[in-house]
């Protein structure tokens, strides 16, 4: 063999778990050659949230053009791909099935491995897209509409779940409060926007910390406190200041997330915190963590906003490490809507 170029590993990542149809081409884990996201937010807005059947219908129409565009922009064909990575859970079953079915057929026809990716792992791996120098062990705080997890990574594919939410996810609580405040969908960004004009000290909402030392979360009590405040004001015929409510609630959620993250860092001694998931784009959360972690000499890493929401690049990034590990999904791969992160 002559000293030819090292073989490139090119992964096509496909994500259709909720309301974004996305595909990306990633070379050697860091060189993002294309990234297409077709968002359905406008379609679902009039319903006040994601409607599963409509989401599935939209994915069905968009998956082919989105994949075509991602290959064209990356200037590669199916024959250049090393593997196809696809989200198989968690998410909306009908939406997942569009991506899983399409990816399976493409991988089969191209004669390359299919990689089934856990969407939650994908969110965490979004951090590896822009940071090539991450060293294990790593602590990840995953905060999204459906999940709130603290996970310690010992290596690629080797992790332990330290804590998770016992009821509502942080993003879910933000969404529900946004709806109660009449701020619309998606809730997180609306709360953040409205909170800018509010006073975060105006309302004293509880911070559920659970048992001493626990790394689990609970947001449903905090959410109820807001709803109760709204209700009792309504009974008295008063109206409450919405920006103040938004700001105070956002502050309460961030306080809990930051407190638990600091506790986990302290318990594990890990020196790098990865922030992941849709709520990782929240500015107050980032700024508070930035400030707190700097004082403890812990490095904070988070993805650019485009990689925080659901996207195909993060699926390709997780796929790259699964490919290196020699993983391949069987042709029987099914969607698993309730897939979770289990220590492994």
């Amino acid at each position, binding site marked *: 063999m002559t000293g030819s170029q090292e073989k490139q590993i090119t992964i096509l990542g496909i994500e259709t778990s909720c309301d974004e149809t996305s595909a990306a081409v990633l070379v050697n884990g860091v060189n993002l050659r294309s990234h297409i996201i077709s968002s359905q937010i406008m379609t679902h807005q009039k319903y006040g949230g994601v409607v599963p059947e409509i989401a599935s219908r939209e994915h069905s129409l968009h998956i082919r053009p989105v994949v075509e565009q991602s290959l064209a922009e990356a200037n590669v064909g199916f024959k250049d791909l090393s593997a196809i990575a696809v989200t198989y859970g968690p998410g909306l079953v009908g939406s997942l099935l569009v991506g899983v079915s399409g990816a399976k057929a493409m991988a*089969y026809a191209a004669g390359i491995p299919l990689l089934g990716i856990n969407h939650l792992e994908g969110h965490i791996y979004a951090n590896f897209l822009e940071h090539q120098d991450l060293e294990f062990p790593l602590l990840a705080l995953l905060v999204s509409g459906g999940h709130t997890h603290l996970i310690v990574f010992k290596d690629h594919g080797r992790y332990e779940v330290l804590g998770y939410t016992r009821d509502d996810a942080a993003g879910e609580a933000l969404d529900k409060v946004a709806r109660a405040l009449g701020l619309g969908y998606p809730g997180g960004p609306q709360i953040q926007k409205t909170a800018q004009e509010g006073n975060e000290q105006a309302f004293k909402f509880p911070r559920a910390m659970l048992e001493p030392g626990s790394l689990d979360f609970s947001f449903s009590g905090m959410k109820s406190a807001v709803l109760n405040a709204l209700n009792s004001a309504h009974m008295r015929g008063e109206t409450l200041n919405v920006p103040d409510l938004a700001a105070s609630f956002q502050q309460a959620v961030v306080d809990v997330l930051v407190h638990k993250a600091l506790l986990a860092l302290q318990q594990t001694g890990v020196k790098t915190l990865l922030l992941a998931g849709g709520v990782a784009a929240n500015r107050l959360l980032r700024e508070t963590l930035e400030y707190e972690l700097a004082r403890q000499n812990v490095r904070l890493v988070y993805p650019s906003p485009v990689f925080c929401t659901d996207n195909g690049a993060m699926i390709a990034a997780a796929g790259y490490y699964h490919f290196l590990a020699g993983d391949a999904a069987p042709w029987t791969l099914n969607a698993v809507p309730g897939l979770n992160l289990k220590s492994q």
Partner: protein
Amino acid sequence: MKYLTIDTTTKVSAIALAEDGKVVAEGFLHTSKTHSERIMPMLDQLFAAAAWTLSELELIGVVRGPGSFTGIRIGIATAQGLAQVLNLPLTGILSLDALAWAGWGRNEDIVPILDARKNEWYTARYRWTAESTFAECLMTPQALSISECLEQLKELEQRICFVGDAAGKAKQEIEAALGDRAIVLPDYLSLPRGAYAAQEVWRRWQEIGAGEKVEPYYIRFSEAEVNWAKKERARKGENHE
């Protein structure tokens, strides 16, 4: 010309490998597993059994509805994924048109009925005539309540042959409504089959002579859209008052 057909619009996964309208290999699974688990392994096994390679394929046909919403999308995503990589044309056909082939050459009108849940059927009506090479469509596909569908058929004079996944289950109801004017074919003849789709795909391919963009054919709007439209109508109605 070698082609593949995929039908996942009911609880049956049906695949055929065919050449110029003649079936070469056929897959039929009516088990408790999902389409997602069944379809690719079945495809792989059929290709091996028929000693065909993917590169020999020249066309992919897919049944695009009506039927199970999720099933429709699995079939189309699979067909599109294969077609995209292999750079092949697609042909989309309707589940009810394919089922008309289950009653090939019969004197009765053919009425396919597919379980549409909520006491409804996806249905249509076809007729074979002595000189026809395919069944003429007399009533285009619609979603009808079972009682309404049977009422409409009562008005007709013709004898009716029922096919489709709802036929077996509704045999008594159909016979009560139509008496000896009704013939209900047993499941082994009337469930969706790769062979039926293979005939319809070949007919359509010859008719249009080119590939086409294939989109799902649901007939029905999603419930959220229906409810939203209702609310909108109510809101506008109030404004008019």
